[in-house]
């Protein structure tokens, strides 16, 4: 079905205005006392039953963090964060023992149902008999299977399809579980792409991270289904610090999706995640994010601070890492999913749609570091600003001396809706190799009154017209998303921009 129609259908159907994921879940929580110090870190490590080496790793990161200063160069403003006023561990209380869906608190399952997240494998596989993942014969054109890890506050509550994936040798589990079951892998790669002292928030994350996803794809394996993690922040005054690690061995392929929402609260909440990707020879990692953290209310009160470090290392020759993101939430978004292109002929891609409305602020972009020969990078960034928001694209393309024949194409487009918002572009281009070819294009536009009128004269309502034009603007990025997410993303775009053209 054409994507545009989906958007319009969704807008028609959306009778609720405002952030409809803003409900909170009443559930018994295990909460660490407020504040951050070595004891809290030991508490987190103990709760998760971690080996000594990991505790040491955390404490080292904490020591580094204490010596660092919060950066202030981004074009975002926020009152100082009081790091001692947060809880660094919040987990839904549950019985000890194996995590099967039956053991998960029904209240939690209801939460995910409300969010439309399919935790029950049966729900996805319509008409299936027998073990999970086994498709019935003649099941054509069913909704494709997606394996899901659900993270509620600090812990992963359920991971689906593990058995199916294990048959291919794919490991997909919470990182806390990977530490227990595959410590050698975690130890080898954790911090290898984003060192603990890389930046202030990475150091903080390394000290207090509680959970996230771990993915390992063995040589030559094309992961049989899309993998996805859904993050939900629920408890008040907590920081959420996930850590995700994805390793793709030679000639493997994986497509990973990340979704995020949080309840409506008056206080700001901090989300400082770290994502590390490693791709070896001929491997491909596709990482997609649809981020819809609570953005704050129309006056700018509350909302998530989304300060994230995401980096992919194209270690192998001809490896490829693509980042696709649709960012519509958060009071403040500060992230630069990046690629370090070590391997000759490796490829890095960044496709982004960042929407800001009301009082949101976004300073986002990417870094493409070309080290190997004939490395290629593509950056397509679409920023949409409305209301009184501010949207900044900040990108770095750095060509190192040995990167013979490196190529980059960058396109950053801004769309302004209304006359009180801002769009800024801060591109950095550094080239130390004269054979490199770099192209940079940028456009800034408004949603034209004439375009809107043209659509309306043909029968579309104002809202539908805005949705149509915005979708056209974002098309290049949206088509990079896996189909499931593309539909969600379009609905999200339409809902985010509801009421923004007055």
């Amino acid at each position, binding site marked *: *079905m*054409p994507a*545009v*129609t989906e958007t*319009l259908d969704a807008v028609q159907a959306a009778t609720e205005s405002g952030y409809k994921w803003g409900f909170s879940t009443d559930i018994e929580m295990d909460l660490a006392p407020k504040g951050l110090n070595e004891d809290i870190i030991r508490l987190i490590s103990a709760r998760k039953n971690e080996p000594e080496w990991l505790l040491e790793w955390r404490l080292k990161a904490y020591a580094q963090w204490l010596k660092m200063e919060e950066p202030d160069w981004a074009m975002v403003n926020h009152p100082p964060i009081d790091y001692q006023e947060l809880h660094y561990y919040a987990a839904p209380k549950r019985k000890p023992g194996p995590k099967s869906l039956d053991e998960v608190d029904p209240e939690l399952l209801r939460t995910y149902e409300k969010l439309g997240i399919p935790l029950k494998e049966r729900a996805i596989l319509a008409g299936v008999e027998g073990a999970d993942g086994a498709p019935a014969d003649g099941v054509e054109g069913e909704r494709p299977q997606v394996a899901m890890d659900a993270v509620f506050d600090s812990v992963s509550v359920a991971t689906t399809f593990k058995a199916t994936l294990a048959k291919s040798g794919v490991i997909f589990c919470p990182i806390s579980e990977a530490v227990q079951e595959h410590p050698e892998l975690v130890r080898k790669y954790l911090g290898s792409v984003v060192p603990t002292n890389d930046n202030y928030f990475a150091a903080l994350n390394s000290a207090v991270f509680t959970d996230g996803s771990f993915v390992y794809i063995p040589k030559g394996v094309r992961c049989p289904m899309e993998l996805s993690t859904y993050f939900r922040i629920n408890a008040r005054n907590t920081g959420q610090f996930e850590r995700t690690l994805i390793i793709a061995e030679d000639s493997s392929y994986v497509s990973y999706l990340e979704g995020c929402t949080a309840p409506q609260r008056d206080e700001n909440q901090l989300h400082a995640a770290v994502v590390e990707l490693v791709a070896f020879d001929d491997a491909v990692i596709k990482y997609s994010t649809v981020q819809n953290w609570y953005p704050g209310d129309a006056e700018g009160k509350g909302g998530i601070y989304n300060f994230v470090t995401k980096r992919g290392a194209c270690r192998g020759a001809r490896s490829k890492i693509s980042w696709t993101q649709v960012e519509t939430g958060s009071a403040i978004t500060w992230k630069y999913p990046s690629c370090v292109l070590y391997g000759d002929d490796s490829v890095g891609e960044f496709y982004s749609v960042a929407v800001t409305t009301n009082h949101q602020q976004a300073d986002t972009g990417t870094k493409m570091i070309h080290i190997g020969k004939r490395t290629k990078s593509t950056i397509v960034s679409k920023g949409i600003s409305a209301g009184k928001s501010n949207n900044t694209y900040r990108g770095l393309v750095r060509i190192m001396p040995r990167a013979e024949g490196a190529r980059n194409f960058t396109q950053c487009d801004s769309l302004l809706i209304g006359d009180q918002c801002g769009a800024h572009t801060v591109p950095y281009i550094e080239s130390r190799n004269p054979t490199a070819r770099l192209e940079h294009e940028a456009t800034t536009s408004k949603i*034209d*009154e*004439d*375009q809107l*009128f*043209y*659509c*309306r*004269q*043909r*029968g*579309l*309502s*104002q809202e*539908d017209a805005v949705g*149509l*034009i915005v*979708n*056209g*603007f*974002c*098309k*290049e990025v949206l088509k990079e998303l896996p189909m499931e997410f593309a539909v969600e993303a379009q609905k999200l775009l339409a809902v985010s921009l509801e009421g923004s053209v007055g």
Partner: protein
Amino acid sequence: MLEIKGLKADIDSKTILNGVDLVIPDGEIHAIMGPNGSGKSTLSYVLSGHEGYEVTEGSATFDGHDLLAIEPEERAALGVFLAFQYPVELPGVNNANFLRTALNAQRRARGEAELDAVQFLKLARAQAKALSMPDDMLKRNVNVGFSGGEKKRNEVLQMAVLRPKLAILDETDSGLDIDALKIVADGVNALRGPGFSALVITHYQRLLEHIVPDRVHVLAAGRIVKSGGPELAHALEAGGYAAVVAEAA
């Protein structure tokens, strides 16, 4: 039937329409000609509901519906179609998708069943063929990279698919070669009949050779100053506007 009575409209506090009276009965095609600045485009914008204009007096009804009281998209659902003089581009918006969305929005508003992708494409391709227009126009993005002539032809294709009851053609013939002109005329003539009226705004008599109007009106200084049959267009071509405008003053 379109009925306009004493219509006055301003833009930026400047009066452009100064008491327009016009009746177009069902099934008829009327032409409006007039010197530049007389208010021809303003009339088409006011009828279709462009927000930049303020109606200060008068009325405009179509089949009994008060056009001026409803939104542009509601007027579209009633069957009002404006073929723009300068059609805008919609980057990234596929032409076929756009048309299908528009058609279905109108059908929904009228309580009619919507067309699915297959049904729609069948309809659109048939219309394109009837108008000797290349199929690939449907695959491109709306007006993006279209030549002036192609944009006008796209307007006619949209009209053929949407099947309006009142088509307003705002200088659709400007910038067209003979062949393109014929396509536009064919498009309008194909719809001609009961349940369809048209208001053709033009400077030149040439289009009216192909779309023979039932009536011709001259708009000058915001009012209709003279009306007649098709022969009036010939007279204007021969003698210019000055005589007609002076006579009416």
